[in-house]
């Protein structure tokens, strides 16, 4: 290792003696220290101190679990007994596992219901809250409230709403002469019911994002359009929507990632039923890992899902990005 020698300002080898003559011709000897080498190489170390807490957090809670779960993919492990190397057996199991395909299908169905609903509802409320509305701050807070309430609490609340015999929704339906709906026990209705609940829970975040997006659109553009005689609908169609495209991309990507994390709702409400219609990918991973102690297989499911999410997000960005460019 070479360092900057304070004596001759040359690149002397660390730990060696440097002999040089000063202005008066007297030979000076000094030792080039490794400390000087470190400092000269990496500069002031206070920056490292600053990032150290996060670096430790990242290493302990992100990098290590990620590396460990990658290792688990090739092992059988039940937490207690030693890990057993099984090569690609977890993958061969996964591709033969009907519940993996069921959970993937259910998650995709959820995304198809959840993302459009999320975007439409959030944009609608954002447009309302962006206008001149009395008590705008109050409404913004109200719509954001479900986001900060615990998922389990919200799910239990909706369980009461969806109750067949004395739930609020069925009470309203019977009051207007309609029949009761078995919200959580009909295989065709359970996932849409969960999607409605998840939309209600998360829409506040996307309202805020859309509001931020709306406020970046210059008012001059609308003024010019008004002068040209454009109706509010045409202004929305040709100004608002195109200029919200970057926000839309973010929201769709975030919704997709969030949708793949669907867990609390089916876990609490349905246990993955009826007929596995609400068995989400995350719930299946949880069951394999923490019910059956198949940590290796759960890690494999997790990695396959991560790859699927990555592919879907890349496709989304490509498609929406093209639209944006157009």
């Amino acid at each position, binding site marked *: 290792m070479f360092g900057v020698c304070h004596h001759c300002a040359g690149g002397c080898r660390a730990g060696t003696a440097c002999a040089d003559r000063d202005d008066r011709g007297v030979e000076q000897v000094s030792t080039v220290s490794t400390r000087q080498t470190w400092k000269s190489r990496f500069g002031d*170390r*206070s920056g*490292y*101190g600053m990032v*150290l807490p996060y670096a*430790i957090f990242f290493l302990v809670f992100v990098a290590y679990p990620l590396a460990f779960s990658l290792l688990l993919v090739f092992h*059988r492990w*039940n*937490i*207690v*007994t030693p890990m057993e190397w099984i090569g690609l057996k977890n993958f061969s*199991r996964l591709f*033969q596992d009907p519940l993996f395909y069921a959970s993937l299908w259910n998650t995709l169905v959820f995304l198809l219901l959840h993302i459009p609903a999320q975007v439409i509802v959030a944009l609608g409320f954002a447009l309302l809250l962006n206008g001149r509305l009395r008590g705008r701050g109050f409404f913004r807070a109200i719509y954001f409230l479900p986001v900060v309430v615990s998922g389990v609490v919200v799910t239990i609340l909706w*369980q*009461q709403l969806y*109750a*067949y*015999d*004395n*739930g609020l929704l069925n009470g309203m339906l019977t009051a207007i002469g309609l029949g*009761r709906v*078995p919200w*959580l*026990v009909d*295989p065709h209705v359970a996932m849409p019911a969960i999607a409605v609940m998840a939309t209600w829970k998360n829409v506040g975040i996307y309202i805020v994002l859309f509001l931020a997006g709306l406020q970046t659109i210059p008012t001059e553009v609308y003024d010019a359009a008004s002068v040209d005689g454009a109706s509010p609908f045409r202004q929305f169609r040709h100004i608002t929507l195109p200029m919200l495209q970057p926000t839309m991309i973010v929201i769709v990507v975030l919704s997709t990632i969030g949708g793949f994390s669907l867990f609390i709702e089916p876990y609490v409400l*349905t*246990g*993955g*039923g*009826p*007929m*596995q219609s609400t068995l989400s990918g995350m719930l299946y991973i949880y*069951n394999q890992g*923490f*019910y*059956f*102690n*198949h940590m290796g297989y759960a890690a494999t499911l997790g990695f396959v899902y991560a790859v699927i999410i990555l592919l879907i997000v890349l496709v989304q960005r490509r498609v929406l990005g093209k639209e944006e460019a157009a």
Partner: protein
Amino acid sequence: MNTTRVVIGSLAALLVMGGCGNQERRTAEGGAVIELTYWPAPNPQEIQLADTLVRRWNAAHPGIQVRMQPIPVSQSTEEVLLAAIAGRTTPDVCSNIQPGAMYEFTRTGGLLPLDGFEGFDSLAEIRAGAELLETFRSPDGHVYQLPWKSNPVMMFYNKRLLREAGYADVPRTYSAYLEAGRHVTRDINGDGEIDVWMGERDIRPIWWQRLFDFYPCYIAASGGKTLFEREAFHMHDSAAAEVFAFFQSCYREGIFPRTFFQGGDPFILGKKATHFSGPWEVATLRKFAPDMEYGVAPLPVPDAMTGPVYTYGDFKNIAVFSTCEHPEAAWAFARYLVQPEHDLLLLELCDQIPVRTDLVTHPLFADYFRRNPVMAEFGKQLQHIRGIDAAPDLKEIFDTLSQVYEKCSVYATIAPADAVRELRARTVMIVEWNK
């Protein structure tokens, strides 16, 4: 300031402070005190029982002091104990060991075999008898659990609801049950909605839910067989098909609802006439439905069935962990827990059934059973119970069973014979996968 040194120093200090020191206690005579840790179940009744027993023990044994600490609350005791075995933080003694989890506990070397301790054979004979004890024997030939209590799943029935439907006696066979169900299940107030059901079960496909419908009925229908024999899946297809068909009829004929009830237990609310549950229900009924006229009876069985009606008994046994430094002292404490007077306390305080072959004949319990005739029925059922097998992949197999049960019995999308075939095929696949 050297940031690295400060951070490393702080972490080291935290680790040192996080450690716990062990101070050796001494008796009045100067001898070292043996300290044992005992984990009972974390429900209030059992904590009260454990507290009472530990106080008495500590007063009588100054040289062996027991520290009682309820099992940390989690989704299941098995998860907590497995994590404790992995971290070598197990207690010395635990009285909430489920036989179904024994496969993993023993495979990890987490437990001590009890059959080597003095007096085990005679004690086990009193507790379980030879036949039942064999079901607790591990594949290595050792017994790692001392039978402590079991809660047989039986049929609670609301006498008034049956009487109003014209039934003086509780139905004992599938056809009688279905017949009674057609009369009991009805819309009382004429609003077009059913107000009283014959029965109801949680239909969510969660593995342990099947311990309260399919599994006990399967044990009853098969004359006391479980799903495994010597760790191999060994289902009696005809019994399984009959049980699938019975529940399919219950849902198809509308005497069981395909829904979840909200706002309380429908049996307590008088919304259903029968309820499959264990003796813990007695305390609940005493508290929330003190005026209800109810009884308990064995589970319904196929019409052609003869002989005693078996059921699933939710066993919780006592084990000593391999981390125990004083096994003899731990064994002495385990024996103390199962003394007859402590079994009586288990009945009195917890409304739970101690596993004893002489439970209904022992004079010590006679007065209790005279005062609690419903509990006496559970006591009688104790002679005909089966637990859950200590088999690998048990939870996953029960999870599969739940899914097949849902398909066949609740939604009737497949026939009972097909359900049996599917369950067998999927179970074989699970066992193969996890080999």
